C-alpha cells in the first residue's frame, strides 16, 4: 500500500516543482536566445548549464507526478535525468568528453566553466541520485521507496543549501570542486527547492526522517571538506615541491652563469696582466675549460686595433697561423669583404673553440651591430656587459633561438685605456642544457625569459621534460599578456645586470603527484554518509519498530490483565479504552455494547487526560444519537473493522460535525466478537492524521477477540450462576419437602405404633395368638418405617449440610465411633481391632464419623452370627502416593462378586430383615460421603471369606465451597 501525501504536502510539492520548472525554462530560453543575463544573472557568476536546466525541468515534472499517483510514469523522465547526470559524472571521472555537454546547445560563454557546457560535478551527482530514485521508485516496496525518496531529497537539499551558504558567505569551496565548473546560484537554489519538495512530499514525524536528513547534510559538508582539505593538503605539498624543484635548476643556472662570466673576467684579467698573449696561450688558459664546462659557446679575444696598426696586426697573425689573416667585415646581405678603412678595428684575434673555416676569425665586430653595441657599452662602462638577446641566425632551424654576447673590457697592464675585450657568445639553450644535464628529470618544463627590457619576456631558452604523455605541443607562453597555467611557478634570475624570469610548468607526469586520493576521500566519505544514513534510518526505524511493538505488547498484556482481574464490565470497558489510548495515538474513544433491547449503548467513554472533546463527547453520549446508522452501526452489522484516515470525508458519520469541530482528523472502529457474533464495538479517534496501520489493526482485533471471550465468559458465568441458584432452590425445596414429609410421617407412625402398644397392653390377654401375632407385625412395620424415615432424613441431610473440612485424626475418630457403637459391638461379641497408626486426614469430621459408623456397624452386624469362629473386624490404613486408603475388614459371610456393584444402591439389601436387620441405605450413605470427598469406595469379598471395604480420600483435597449449612 503506497501512502499518498496529504493535501498540504502535495501543495508544497507542486509549488516546488513549478518554481523549479520556471527557473529551468527561463535558463533554457537564455541559452537558446544567447541572453547571458537569464543564465548567469551576474556576469561574474557561473551560469546554469543547459543540460542542468533540462534535467531540472524533467525532474520537477517527474516529482510532481510522483507525489500525485502511486504508480507514477516516471521511468522515461527518470532515465533521461539519470543518463545525463551519470554520463557527466563519468566524463569528469574519466576525463573524457562524450560530447554530452554541448549536445543541445553550443556553449558560447563559459564563465567559471571548466569544460564548455558541462555542469558542475556536484549537480551531476545530484541528478544521478535523483535519476536512480525516479527510475526505481515504482519497483520498490513502500518502505524502500520512502527511504529512497528521503535520501534523494536529502542529497539534493544538502548540496543546494551548502552551495547557497557558500555563495552567501563567500566560501568558494562550498560550490567549487577543484578546477571544475562552479555550481551556479540558480542551480543551488533549484536543488534546494527540489530537495525540499521531495522531502516534504512524504514528510512524517519519524525520527528516522530527521536523522537521515541531518546525517546527509552533515555527511555532505564533511565529504566536501574532506575533498577540499585533502586537495588543499596536496596543493600545499605540490607548491612546496614545485618551489623546491624549480629553485634548484635556477640556482644551478645562476651559479653556472656566474661562473661563466667570472671566467670571462678572469680571462680578461689574465690578458690584462700579460701584455700580449699568444694564440696558444689563449687556448690553453681559456679555451677548453671554457668551451666544455661552461657552456659558453665561444670565447674570443678582440683587441682594439687602430688603423695604423692594421697591417702589422694582420701580418703578425698571418705569420703565426700560417694562413692569411685579414680583417674583414660583413655586408648587410651577410657576405664578407675586406674591412674598409676606419680609425679603429675590433677584429676577432683568437677564438676558442677554434673553428675551421670560421669566417669569424678576423671579423671586425664593429660590423656586427649586436656584438658591437655590447662591446661599445662594455668599453664605456668599463665592466662586463651582456647584450640583449640576439636571434641566432645559425640556429634558425630550432626556431627563435637566442644567444647573448658578453664583452669584458681589458685594460692595458699599467693602466691606460682598454686594449680590447674578451668576448663570449653564450648559447643560452646550450648553456641551459649543459647546466641541467646532471639533474634528474623532475617533470618540470622550464622556460627562461629575458625580462630586462620587456616585462612580457623574451623566451631565450627552454628545457622540456620527458614527463609529457601523448601528444605535446609547446604553448607560446607569455608572461603578462596571457594567463599562465595556475600550476606554474616563476622564479627570478638576475645575471650580469640582466633580469631573467624562469617559468616552471609542471608536466602531466609532475601533476601525477595529484592523486585521486581526495576524490577517493570524497567518494568514501559520501559512501559512508549514505551508509550511515541507511544505518541510522534502519536503527531509528528499528527502534521505532521496537517502540511500536512494545506499545502493542502493552496493549495486549494490559487488556489481558484487565480481563483477568474480574472487574465489573464498566471498569473493564473504561480500563480497555484507557490502555488503548495510552499506547497508541488515539486520545478519545467509546466502548459500545449491544443492550438487551438490541440497540447499541455506550458502556464507557474515555478521553485521555489533558484533552478536551466537549462537542464530540456530548454528541456521542446524547441519547438522540442513532448509532446504528453511523460508523459504529456499520461495524456492528459488518463485523469488520473500519479505518477512517480523514474523518471529514466520511459520508454518514453522525458525529462528524462535532468531531471536525473538535479537531479530530482520524478514527478507527473495530468489533468485539463472540465467535461470529458481534456484541460490541470500540471506536477511537485522534487529532493527528493517522494512516491505516496493519499491525495496530491486528493488535486491536486481538484485543477485541479477548474482550469478546471475556464477555462470553461473563455470560457463561452468569448463566452458571443462574443454574446454580436454580439448583439450590430446587435442592432447598426438595430438602424441605423431604424434611417436612419425614416429619409429618412421624406423627401418624407414632400413633400407629403407640396404639398398637396400647392395644397389646390393655387388650392383649383378650387376643388369641394370631391376634397377638398381627399386632407384633404391625409394630414391626412401624419400627421399619421409622428406620426408613431416619435414613431418608440422613441422606437428605448429607446433601444439604457441608461442614468445613478439618484435620481429623482417624484413630481418635474410629475410637469415638466404636464408643457410639459400643452396645452393638458388645452384644454381638465381635472383636474389633484398630490398626494403629491411622493417619490424619483432612475431611468432614461429622460425615466421616457417619461413614465409619455405617461401615463398622455393617462389618460387626455381618460377622456377628458366625458359627465356629469369633467375628473379627479390623480397621486399617494403606498409604498410596496421592491418596489415603482406609479399610474395614470383617471375617463375616462375605458378598458374592456379582452383587459388589449393586449393594451401594439405595435401600438395596441382600438379606431379609429376619436374617439381618437394616434398611439398605448404609452403603449408599457411605458412597455418597466418599464421593463428596472426591474419593472412591470398593470392595474385596467372596462368600464365606469375609469382606474388606476400602475407601480412598485424596491427599490434596480441594475443599468445595458449599452453600451455608442448613438443617
Amino acid at each position, binding site marked *: 500500500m503506497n501512502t499518498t501525501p496529504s493535501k498540504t504536502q502535495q501543495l508544497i510539492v507542486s509549488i516546488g516543482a513549478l518554481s523549479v520548472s520556471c527557473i529551468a525554462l527561463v535558463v533554457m530560453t537564455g541559452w537558446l536566445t544567447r541572453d547571458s543575463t537569464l543564465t548567469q544573472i551576474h556576469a561574474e557568476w557561473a551560469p546554469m548549464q543547459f543540460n542542468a536546466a533540462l534535467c531540472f525541468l524533467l525532474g520537477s515534472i517527474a516529482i510532481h507526478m510522483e507525489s500525485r499517483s502511486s504508480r507514477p510514469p516516471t521511468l522515461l523522465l527518470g532515465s533521461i535525468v539519470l543518463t545525463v547526470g551519470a554520463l557527466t559524472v563519468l566524463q569528469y571521472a574519466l576525463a573524457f568528453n562524450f560530447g554530452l555537454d554541448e549536445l543541445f546547445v553550443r556553449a558560447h560563454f563559459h564563465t567559471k566553466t571548466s569544460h564548455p557546457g558541462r555542469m558542475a560535478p556536484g549537480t551531476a551527482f545530484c541528478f544521478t541520485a535523483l535519476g536512480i530514485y525516479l527510475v526505481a521508485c515504482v519497483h520498490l516496496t513502500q518502505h524502500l521507496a520512502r527511504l529512497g525518496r528521503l535520501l534523494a531529497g536529502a542529497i539534493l537539499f544538502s548540496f543546494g543549501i551548502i552551495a547557497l551558504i557558500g555563495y552567501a558567505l563567500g566560501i568558494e569551496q562550498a560550490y567549487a570542486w577543484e578546477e571544475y565548473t562552479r555550481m551556479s546560484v540558480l542551480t543551488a537554489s533549484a536543488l534546494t527547492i527540489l530537495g525540499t519538495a521531495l522531502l516534504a512530499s512524504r514528510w512524517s514525524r519519524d525520527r528516522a526522517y530527521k536523522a537521515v536528513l541531518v546525517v546527509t547534510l552533515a555527511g555532505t559538508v564533511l565529504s566536501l571538506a574532506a575533498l577540499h582539505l585533502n586537495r588543499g593538503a596536496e596543493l600545499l605539498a605540490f607548491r612546496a615541491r614545485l618551489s623546491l624543484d624549480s629553485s634548484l635548476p635556477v640556482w644551478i643556472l645562476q651559479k653556472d652563469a656566474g661562473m661563466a662570466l667570472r671566467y670571462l673576467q678572469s680571462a680578461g684579467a689574465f690578458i690584462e696582466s700579460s701584455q700580449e698573449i699568444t694564440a696558444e696561450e689563449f687556448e690553453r688558459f681559456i679555451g677548453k675549460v671554457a668551451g666544455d664546462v661552461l657552456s659558453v659557446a665561444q670565447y674570443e679575444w678582440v683587441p682594439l686595433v687602430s688603423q695604423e696598426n692594421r697591417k702589422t696586426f694582420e701580418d703578425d697573425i698571418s705569420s703565426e697561423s700560417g694562413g692569411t689573416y685579414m680583417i674583414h667585415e660583413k655586408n648587410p646581405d651577410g657576405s664578407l669583404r675586406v674591412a674598409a678603412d676606419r680609425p679603429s678595428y675590433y677584429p676577432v684575434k683568437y677564438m676558442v673553440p677554434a673553428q675551421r673555416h670560421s669566417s669569424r676569425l678576423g671579423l671586425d665586430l664593429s660590423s656586427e651591430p649586436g656584438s658591437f653595441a655590447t662591446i661599445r657599452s662594455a668599453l664605456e662602462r668599463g665592466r662586463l656587459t651582456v647584450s640583449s638577446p640576439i636571434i641566432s641566425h645559425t640556429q634558425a632551424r630550432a626556431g627563435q633561438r637566442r644567444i647573448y654576447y658578453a664583452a669584458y673590457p681589458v685594460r692595458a697592464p699599467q693602466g691606460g685605456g682598454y686594449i680590447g675585450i674578451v668576448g663570449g657568445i653564450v648559447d643560452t639553450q646550450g648553456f641551459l642544457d649543459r647546466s641541467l644535464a646532471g639533474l634528474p628529470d623532475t617533470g618540470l618544463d622550464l622556460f627562461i625569459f629575458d625580462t630586462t627590457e620587456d616585462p612580457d619576456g623574451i623566451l631565450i631558452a627552454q628545457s622540456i621534460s620527458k614527463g609529457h604523455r601523448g601528444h605535446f605541443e609547446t604553448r607560446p607562453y607569455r608572461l603578462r599578456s596571457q594567463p599562465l597555467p595556475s600550476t606554474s611557478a616563476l622564479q627570478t634570475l638576475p645575471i650580469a645586470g640582466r633580469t631573467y624570469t624562469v617559468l616552471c610548468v609542471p608536466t602531466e607526469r609532475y601533476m601525477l603527484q595529484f592523486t585521486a586520493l581526495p576524490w577517493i576521500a570524497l567518494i568514501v566519505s559520501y559512501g559512508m554518509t549514505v551508509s550511515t544514513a541507511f544505518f541510522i534510518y534502519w536503527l531509528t526505524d528499528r527502534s521505532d519498530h521496537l517502540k511500536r511493538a512494545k506499545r502493542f505488547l502493552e496493549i495486549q498484556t494490559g487488556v489481558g490483565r484487565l480481563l483477568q482481574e474480574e472487574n465489573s464490565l464498566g471498569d473493564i470497558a473504561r480500563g480497555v479504552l484507557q490502555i488503548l489510548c495510552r499506547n497508541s495515538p488515539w486520545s478519545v474513544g467509546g466502548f459500545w455494547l449491544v443492550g438487551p433491547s438490541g440497540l447499541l449503548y455506550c458502556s464507557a467513554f474515555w478521553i485521555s487526560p489533558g484533552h478536551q472533546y466537549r462537542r464530540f463527547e456530548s454528541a456521542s453520549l446524547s441519547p438522540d444519537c442513532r448509532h446504528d446508522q453511523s460508523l459504529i452501526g456499520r461495524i456492528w452489522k459488518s463485523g469488520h473493522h473500519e479505518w477512517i484516515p480523514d474523518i471529514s470525508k466520511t459520508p454518514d458519520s453522525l458525529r462528524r460535525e462535532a468531531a471536525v469541530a473538535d479537531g479530530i482528523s482520524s478514527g478507527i472502529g473495530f468489533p468485539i466478537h463472540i465467535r461470529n457474533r458481534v456484541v460490541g464495538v470500540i471506536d477511537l479517534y485522534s487529532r493527528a492524521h493517522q494512516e491505516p496501520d496493519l499491525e495496530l489493526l491486528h493488535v486491536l482485533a486481538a484485543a477485541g477477540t479477548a474482550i469478546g471471550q471475556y464477555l462470553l465468559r461473563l455470560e457463561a458465568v452468569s448463566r452458571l450462576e443462574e443454574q446454580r441458584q436454580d439448583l439450590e432452590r430446587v435442592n432447598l425445596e426438595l430438602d424441605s419437602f423431604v*424434611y417436612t414429609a419425614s*416429619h409429618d410421617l*412421624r*406423627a*401418624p*407412625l*407414632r*400413633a400407629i*405404633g*403407640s*396404639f398398637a*402398644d*396400647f392395644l397389646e*397392653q390393655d387388650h392383649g390377654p383378650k387376643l388369641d395368638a394370631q391376634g397377638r401375632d398381627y399386632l407384633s407385625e404391625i409394630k414391626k412395620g*412401624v*419400627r421399619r418405617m*421409622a428406620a426408613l424415615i431416619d435414613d431418608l*432424613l440422613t441422606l437428605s441431610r448429607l446433601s444439604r449440610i457441608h461442614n468445613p473440612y478439618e484435620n481429623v485424626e482417624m484413630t481418635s475418630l474410629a475410637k469415638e465411633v466404636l464408643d457410639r457403637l459400643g452396645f452393638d459391638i458388645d452384644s454381638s461379641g465381635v472383636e474389633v481391632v484398630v490398626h494403629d497408626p491411622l493417619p490424619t486426614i483432612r475431611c468432614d469430621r461429622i460425615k466421616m464419623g457417619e461413614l465409619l459408623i455405617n461401615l463398622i456397624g455393617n462389618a460387626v452386624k455381618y460377622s456377628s452370627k458366625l458359627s465356629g469362629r469369633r467375628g473379627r473386624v479390623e480397621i486399617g490404613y494403606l498409604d498410596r502416593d496421592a491418596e489415603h486408603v482406609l479399610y474395614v475388614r470383617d471375617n463375616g459371610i462375605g458378598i458374592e462378586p456379582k452383587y459388589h456393584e449393586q449393594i451401594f444402591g439405595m435401600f438395596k439389601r441382600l438379606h431379609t430383615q429376619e436374617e439381618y436387620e437394616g434398611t439398605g441405605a448404609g452403603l449408599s450413605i457411605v458412597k455418597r460421603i466418599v464421593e463428596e470427598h472426591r474419593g472412591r469406595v470398593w470392595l474385596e469379598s467372596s462368600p464365606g471369606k469375609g469382606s474388606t471395604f476400602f475407601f480412598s480420600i485424596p491427599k490434596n483435597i480441594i475443599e468445595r465451597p458449599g452453600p451455608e449449612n*442448613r*438443617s
Partner: protein
Amino acid sequence: MNGQTPDTARILDILLAEDNEADVKIALRAFEKAGLKHVIHVVRDGQEALDFLRQTGRHSQAPRPDVVLLDIQMPKLTGLQVLEEMKRDPELRRIPAVMLTSSRNEGDIRTSYSSYASGFMQKPIAFEDFEKLVEGFNRYWAEISRLPKKGS
C-alpha cells in the same frame, strides 16, 4: 414453707398444648402408665393456650400451670409464638415452657432456646420411648428442679 427438702411427690399443673388427637392420647397414657399424678390440662391450639395462661375467655377459672408443654405446629398460633408471648408477659414469663414436638429441626431447637424455652423434647415414635421421656421429664421437673410458688 422453709427448708430445701425436695417434695418428691409434688403434683404439678401441666398445660399441654397439642393439636393432634392421637398425640394427646399417647401423652396422657404415658403419664398414666408412668404412675404420675400431675394434672394435665390440654389445649388444642396456640390461642387457646394463651387464653388458658391469661385465664381469659373459657379458661377464666383456669389454674396457673407450673410447667407448659408446647407443641410447635399448632393452628392459630404456633408453639414458638406462644412462647414468645409468654416471655413477654411479666407474669407468664416465670413459667417454664418445654417444647414437645416431632420436629428434629436444628433451627427449631435454636429458635426455641433463643425465645427462652426451658427445654426441648422430641416425641419418639415408639411408645415405650415416650414412657421413658415422660419419666425423665417428671424426674427433672417434679423432683429435681425447684419451681416458683404459684400466686406470689
